[in-house]
């Protein structure tokens, strides 16, 4: 049986509204909220990780080569990484 997205009747609700699956919010993609998306330019990137540390979504991850990339499924397009990246390796463009 396919997993249900949410309980359909009150009998299916856990006592105390407990949720047993940690980090299940990842099933909710917030990327649709975005008006602008960040473009990370690897030629200017110095791999310092400031964008990773300041992202409120935690959607910027490090790849195998040490460059950083934003997971556009979750990025809300706030522009913090663009504003804080001092080598100016990040640009915001209309999505």
């Amino acid at each position: 049986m396919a997993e249900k997205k949410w309980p359909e009747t009150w009998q299916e609700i856990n006592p105390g509204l407990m949720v047993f699956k940690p980090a299940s919010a990842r099933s909710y993609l917030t990327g649709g909220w975005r008006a602008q998306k960040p473009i990370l330019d690897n030629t200017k990137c110095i791999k310092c990780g400031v964008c990773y540390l300041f992202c409120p979504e935690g959607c910027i991850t490090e790849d195998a080569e040490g460059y950083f990339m934003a997971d556009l499924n979750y990025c809300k397009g706030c522009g913090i990484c663009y504003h804080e990246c001092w080598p100016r390796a990040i640009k915001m463009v209309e999505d």
Partner: protein
Amino acid sequence: MKGIVENFDLYAPKLVDKEEYFSSGHRACQGCGEALAVRLMCKGLGKDTVITNATGCMEVISSLYPTTAWKLPWIHVAFPNSAAVGAGVESALKVLRRKGKIADRDVKTVSIGGDGGSVDIGFQAISGSMERGHNMIYVCFDNEAYMNTGIQRSGATPFGASTTTAPAGAASVGNKTWKKNMPEIMVAHNVPYVATACHSYPIDFINKVKKARSVKGPAYIHCLAVCPTGWRSSSDTCIKLGRLAVETGFFPLYEVENGKYRLTIEMPKKLRPVEDYLKLQGRFRHLTPDQMKQFQERVTLEYKKLMNKVKYSKSWLEM
């Protein structure tokens, strides 16, 4: 030598715990400073942590049923009693450990709340748990109003801010009172560790959380969290605003260890004028030069009072 230290600071983000305990997919506004602060706090705490959360933005955005953004044991409690429930969890863990029902591990109880849930409504619960000396941390995420319910003023709202219950207009400057000095009240509880922090200085914040975790006894951290929605500022200036709050002396970062005050961030010799901080925020847009001067005088006075304590205070272990 200086160059090496600078490079260390520059690449410090690489040394931070990569595990995300506060996952993506939470429903915070764009550029939410509080969500960032919670994420950084969890990185500092690690996995052996129980979190109790008062009602507020962090509860609403992280746990929309049937999903949760937390990877840590987390309980939502009513507005006033986050610290009381935290104290209860801490005592229960202690008893279970004594009876041998759970493994003997160092599990820290952390209570979190917004400024409404800490400075106004939950104040007596915090005061109680700090006074009883529970081995727990309380972290207040201060975004300077009740942002979750629609920007009503709280005890932590600064002078002159326009909120929905203290709107600025022809006869009003907005909020008429000054920000309540919560860290100072906690120092008066003889708590072993009190600190102020801001998400714009992440390494400093994580270090303070780690230090608070290692303290045996209660610890209190007051974290300024920028709220672009309530402060009427652009979402990309979130980090910049936090930095300006520190550099203008409006929210200096310090820690009080056993009564000894210490600034944790090197402050500029001459503070930046507070206008730099105010003009980026729509909630202060109506302030006249006279009112800004009044604001500046108060900020300078508070900063001088703090510097006096930094200069003359001594750890009570040395007395």
